């Protein structure tokens, strides 16, 4: 069972120290990414999704530090503790891109405008594989073709500005997939794109998962995307994973008040005009002034005295865990 796990994150705390303040951006985050499965991390802006991705890739800002916790990559040569590798050391650089690849939110700025798309793919291949010059060229063309870029022989020599937003994102994925990484981390890859283009990208990611067994960690703020793509979900709120489990359980029987509130607050296509949506009152707390206990307490309708203490992570089921003092009531409620 354990050998299909590609990456484990355990009790990860990442703090950011800008302006002489300490932002506890990640405050104890645990999850695992499985081979051939998609883990969706969902949460509001500022809850720490991107910091999680940056911690795994060791691409954190300089003024930040992994305080505690373990990030273990289960590579073909045995486990590697990523959090203990020097940020820019040779080992980390070998993992980045070759073993774990990442695509970013903004396809407009993530590509270098002064090099052709083909050059940028070939550079990755040159750095991480032993392919010869002409092999690299044909591999680049193959990659673009498999990403659904029309006329790849011609397009491979074009510069990013000639690509549209959706094509740039596909080119980004082509670069990310060039060395057949075992894990693909996608930080809101379609937020800047139209739904029709988003559908193209999702189709592509599904293919990758199916055909290459890539483990995907997809960051999003859209519950719809979770329902469409995820195998597993982790719901984040202010630096904690408040609920995690298989998508069927978390979306059908949510146990944490935040997950439930989130699902109740979005209109769902096809439910018509009479559907009831309930807004979550208030807003996320100031990251420099976090509440002592449960981070969601100020907005939670079920708050009790105990919520002034940070709740522990508890397993509702072997594969379903939650961080809430009153989870038992909700779990019983959800089981009905």
């Amino acid at each position, binding site marked *: 069972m354990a050998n299909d796990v590609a990456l484990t994150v355990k009790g990860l705390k990442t*703090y950011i*120290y800008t*302006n*002489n*303040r*300490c932002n506890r951006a990640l405050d104890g985050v645990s999850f695992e990414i499985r081979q051939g499965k998609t883990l969706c991390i969902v949460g509001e802006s500022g809850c720490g999704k991107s910091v999680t991705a940056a911690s795994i890739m060791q691409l954190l800002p300089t*003024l930040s*530090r992994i*305080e505690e916790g373990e990030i273990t990559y289960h590579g073909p040569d*045995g*486990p*590697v*503790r990523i959090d*203990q590798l*020097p940020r820019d050391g040779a080992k980390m650089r070998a993992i980045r891109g070759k073993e774990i690849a990442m695509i970013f939110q903004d396809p407009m700025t993530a590509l270098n405008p002064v090099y052709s798309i083909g050059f940028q793919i070939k550079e990755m291949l040159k750095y991480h594989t032993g392919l010869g010059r002409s092999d690299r060229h044909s591999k680049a063309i193959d990659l673009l073709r498999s990403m659904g870029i029309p006329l790849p022989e011609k397009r491979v020599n074009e510069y990013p500005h000639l690509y549209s937003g959706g094509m740039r994102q596909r080119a980004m994925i082509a670069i990310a997939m060039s060395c057949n990484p075992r894990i693909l981390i996608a930080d809101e890859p379609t937020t800047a794109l139209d739904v029709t283009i988003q559908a193209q990208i999702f189709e592509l990611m599904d293919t990758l998962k199916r055909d290459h067994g890539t483990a995907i960690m997809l960051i999003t703020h859209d519950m719809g995307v979770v329902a469409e793509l995820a195998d597993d979900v982790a719901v984040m709120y202010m630096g904690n994973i408040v609920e995690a489990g298989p998508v069927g359980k978390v979306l059908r029987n949510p146990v944490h008040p935040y997950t439930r509130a989130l699902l109740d607050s979005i209109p769902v296509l096809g439910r018509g005009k009479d559907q009831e949506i309930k807004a979550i009152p208030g807003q996320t707390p100031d990251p420099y*002034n976090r509440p*002592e206990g449960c981070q969601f307490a100020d907005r939670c309708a079920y708050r009790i005295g105990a919520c002034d203490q940070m709740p522990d992570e508890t397993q509702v089921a072997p594969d379903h865990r939650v961080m809430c003092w009153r989870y038992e009531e909700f779990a019983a409620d959800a089981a009905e």
Partner: protein
Amino acid sequence: MTDANATRPRTRRDAQFDKIRDREAALAGTRQRTGRFMSKFLNNRLAVVGFVIFAVICLMSLFAPLIAQHDPMSPNLRAIAKPPSAEHWFGTDKTGRDVFARVLYGGRVSILVGLGSALLSAIIGVIIGVYSGYVGGWLDWIAMRISEIFMSFPQIILVLLLVAILGQSLLNLIVIFTLTGWGGIYRMARARMLSIREEEYVQALRSFGLGPARIAYKHMLPNALGPIMVNITLSTAAFILQEAGLSFLGLGVPLSIPTWGNILNAAQDLRVLEQNWWIWLPVGATISLFVLSVNFIGDGLRDATDPSQQG
């Protein structure tokens, strides 16, 4: 080969991080914002210091006749190139004139020329740039062409022309600096306006039917003040030095009248530079101090207009 238990070596930064973290942990719950408050205070203090230096230099120049015991223009042949003494605080120059008196009197002209031209060109540049940048169209086109003409015209020819027409005087110098200087500020103000014009709050104001002058000057200009302030301080310094250059060529202020530039020009001689430091050092320091103080004031004003800088 992977050493799973090796932790990363601690760096100096780690110690700093620990300090911040511990402080925050100790203060958890109590809202304290020392860092922000201190930096705000410091910012204001620099502006205050700047203002004090500025005021002292201006007042001393203004009241030069009361402060200086010597005439800045009359040579004293018995005290040529003397180092500082109780009699002559900053010593005397090569013709025996009191340097201290010359620096004080020189400030009158230099401040007037430097600051006056900078402010005047800023006013002209901003008035034209803000409006034409916002409204666009033919008005903008004309303003742009005029500024290009002035900026591409060699300054020295303009000076010669004006001196020929108007004669050599202080006022002409200001006119010349303003004419050649407004283009830069105009272009900057215009460029800022072009980008602010697309902001949605400007569209909202338009949708209320507010007039263009009101939108441009009242609502958009405050958002362009930062770079304008910086430009004013920079051009003040530049004009003070340019005045020196023109005066040296005999095109600005007559050499006999003391200005900071004229005094500094005397130090172009290598011998003076090496042996008579008191001739150039005080005036050089004064110029630097003055420009610096204008800079601090500019920074302070900019921060004051930027609400996100206020605690």
